[in-house]
């Protein structure tokens, strides 16, 4: 980790206008949670439905996309990353520092609001808050790593990430059973399902895969994406067309 890189990354992430979006998403989620509590009388089923669909399917991937691309893509786009790269600092340290900032932001802007939303909408001794908090944390780590790597790999990271998060995870994953197994959300829900035990089925917290498979796949994708990002950052082409 490099504190200077983290410092510059953080001021870049929060200093741009897109940081307003980062605040807007959790605010909408908390608002919906309050509405849900009022409309369904704090039922755990309704809470689980809100969190399983809107929070895990939209708020979390979108926040991770904003954060993951926000910590590095603008610098690559405008070329200012050259000031980080023209330094005798290992590329792994630069990328992991940025990843650390992104993960912290994901926790603040997605994971904690999701837990709060569960408590607001209606929970039973914070069991749903814990279960969805765990799932959001695991999925958040994986998504963030994926989107940071994507930002180094392609200048169209936001579009590719949106297509993946919205089309693959939300739409195709909902209809095609085989695809559901290849989904960060499903992998992350496996430990949440295990955490809730007997109540999981009645609250609708179910995963397409079991815990060892889910955790293994999460780890493989997270580490693989970070490794790829480091490799690509080391060979990043920085040149204007003359």
């Amino acid at each position, binding site marked *: 980790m*490099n*504190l*200077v*890189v983290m*410092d*510059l990354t953080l*001021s*870049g992430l929060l*200093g741009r206008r897109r940081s307003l979006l980062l605040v807007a998403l959790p605010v909408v989620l908390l608002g919906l949670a309050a509405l849900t509590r009022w409309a369904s009388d704090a039922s755990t089923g309704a809470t689980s439905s809100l969190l399983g669909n809107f929070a895990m399917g939209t708020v979390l991937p979108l926040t991770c996309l904003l954060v993951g691309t926000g910590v590095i893509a603008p610098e690559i786009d*405008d*070329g*200012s990353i*050259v*000031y*980080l*790269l*023209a*330094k*005798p*600092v*290992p*590329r792994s340290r630069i990328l992991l520092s940025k990843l650390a900032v992104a993960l912290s932001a994901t926790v603040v802007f997605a994971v904690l609001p999701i837990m709060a939303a569960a408590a607001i909408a209606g929970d039973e001794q914070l069991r749903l808050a814990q279960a969805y908090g765990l799932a959001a944390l695991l999925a958040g780590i994986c998504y963030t790593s994926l989107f940071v790597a994507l930002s180094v790999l392609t200048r169209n990271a936001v579009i590719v990430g949106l297509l993946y998060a919205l089309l693959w995870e939300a739409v195709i994953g909902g209809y095609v059973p085989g695809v559901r197994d290849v989904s960060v959300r499903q992998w992350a829900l496996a430990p949440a399902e295990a955490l809730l035990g007997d109540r999981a089925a009645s609250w609708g917290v179910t995963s397409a895969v079991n815990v060892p498979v889910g955790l293994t796949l999460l780890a493989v994708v997270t580490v693989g994406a970070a490794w790829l990002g480091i490799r690509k950052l*080391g*060979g*990043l*082409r*920085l*040149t*204007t*067309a*003359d």
Partner: protein
Amino acid sequence: MSAILLDRVSRWYGSVVAVNDVTMTIGPGITGLLGPNGAGKSTLISMMGGFLAPSSGTVTLDGGPVWRHPEVYRAIGLVPEAEAMYDMVTGAQFLLANARLHGLSDADAAARRALDAVDMADAADRPIATYSKGMKQRIKMATALVHDPAVLLLDEPFNGMDPRQRLHLMDLLRALAAEGRTVLFSSHILEEVEQIADTIEVLVAGRHAASGDYRRIRRLMTERPHQYTITSSDDRALAAALLADGAADGVQLSGGTLAVQTSDFGRFTHALPRLARDGGIRLLEVSPADESLESVFAYLVAR
């Protein structure tokens, strides 16, 4: 004392060749990389700075490769052409960040020294976003100097500078070169380059067109064949007189104008009015056909 060595370096993007088989050594002193826009100067500097892999050939700094070797940045200071920086921090904060990224033992002092060197100490506490183009250029320069590098690579450093800033930067580069540093800068303006460069490397259409001190380059450029188009009261007689006098190498009569080619610029310009007067010919129009810098460069390549 450090030197960058390019050995048969080429770089292509798909089927477009940006840099074609360039071999050169950039040693201590100021080297000007001269060429028209699109000649491949930025591509070449990117490869020297380790931000682009050569498609073939090697780029080395004091014998070690630069591509995928971040430790070379202890010796290299880079001034990129792109203007973007970390806009939300102040100049002083940005310089300090650069110094700390270099792992300097006294980052504070190094940052202050670099700001002083570019005369930016007064405005250092303002956010970079509020700086003018010239101030940004100076902050870029300061980030390249902060770790006291042996090699300085500058991509079009004079772009957007006013005359005073230009002179200041020229003085700074001269002082750095006098300390034994290797300074390379690119430009598409000959006058800029010949004012301060000890050595000039000319790049045209990706090729290494010429190399040497500015007098040699200047001579190559003025001694090339010149083309003129002339309209006069009697083109045919004027053409004959120019050929007979030896002031022109070739003439062509077509479409009511006379095209003249000469390899001796001085002799032609003196002979033309004299021959016209002697022959009673009235000159209606005399214009150089190829005085653009691009055509000068094109001649150097074709040579």
